[in-house]
């Protein structure tokens, strides 16, 4: 298990020679260099970053939601924003450590942040703002994006090639996705992982 309780794998979980779809659930993070792997997820207000080392041909996807971000300066480092920052760092570091280790080789694409239910606060917009600010602050360029809007998305990412396919979903499907996302996010506050080695 990773620091965020997410699985970071080499993606080599497919049968020999067969295409394999790896679902990246909310809070998840997957990394693979396997040409047979497609990473897939469905995003309402959530964000997924697809990060690929273009030289090592290895890539990964995460999936997170900052549900309680208020937008105040104090909350820049609040629990919700910290969760997003750790989710991004986890993905970037996993790709770097399994790839060339050079930040300049990373190609970053970001998706999601939809505002599906107009009666609710625009959680998606805050998530879009977060991921843009995070990448700008860390000196990364966004190579490609499909962010915001009033629809949910299905994202499919081929980590070995870096190609991403986006399908926009109808509003009924989107509302269901957002309800589920918020329910998960409310349970997922930043909780320090339990140490299994104590040092004194």
């Amino acid at each position, binding site marked *: 298990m*990773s620091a965020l309780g997410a699985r970071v794998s080499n993606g080599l979980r497919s049968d020999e020679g067969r295409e394999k779809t790896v679902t990246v659930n909310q809070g998840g993070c997957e990394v693979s260099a396997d040409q047979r792997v497609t990473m897939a997820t469905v995003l309402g207000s959530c964000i997924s970053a697809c990060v690929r080392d273009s030289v090592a041909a290895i890539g990964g996807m995460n999936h997170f939601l900052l549900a309680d971000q208020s937008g105040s300066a104090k909350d820049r*480092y609040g629990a919700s924003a910290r969760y997003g*920052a750790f989710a991004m760092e986890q993905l970037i570091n996993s790709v770097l450590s399994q790839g060339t280790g*050079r930040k300049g080789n990373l190609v970053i694409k970001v998706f999601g942040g939809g505002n599906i239910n107009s009666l609710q606060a625009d959680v998606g917009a805050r998530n879009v703002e977060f991921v843009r600010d995070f990448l700008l*602050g*860390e000196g990364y360029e966004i190579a490609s994006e499909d962010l915001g809007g009033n629809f949910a998305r299905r994202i499919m990412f081929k980590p070995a090639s870096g190609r991403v396919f986006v399908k926009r979903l109808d509003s009924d499907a989107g509302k269901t996705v957002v309800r589920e996302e918020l329910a998960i996010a409310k349970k997922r506050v930043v909780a*320090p*992982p339990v140490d*299994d080695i104590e040092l004194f």
Partner: protein
Amino acid sequence: MPKASTISVLVVDDQQSMRGICKFILNQLGFQKITEAKSGRDALGKLQENKIDLIISDWNMDDIDGLTLLKVIRKHPKTKTMPFIMATGRSDKEQVKEAIVAGVNNYIIKPFDAGSMKKKIEAVIGALV
């Protein structure tokens, strides 16, 4: 008992957001003297320029990683006993053991909060006031 406001902490992380989070949490715990280093190499420079009482360093960094930084610090007579906490997303026991062998005083797994940070710091330098 050490007073947090008098302790100089060097925060080493190549990600600006992580340095910001760490600094925010240290401020919550009463620490006021916080120096930031954006790489292992930068940390070595900051150690020469500043009086540092405690190092909190990331593991994964571009030039000199946290483990290498720790090893360099442990070799230098002036810094060989300096309290060093490794902040890492790697919960792998083998990597933690590697840091222990290199002389780390404690480690903290991301994501962390003020409570877990306080516990780790106090385990290294004693209860804070």
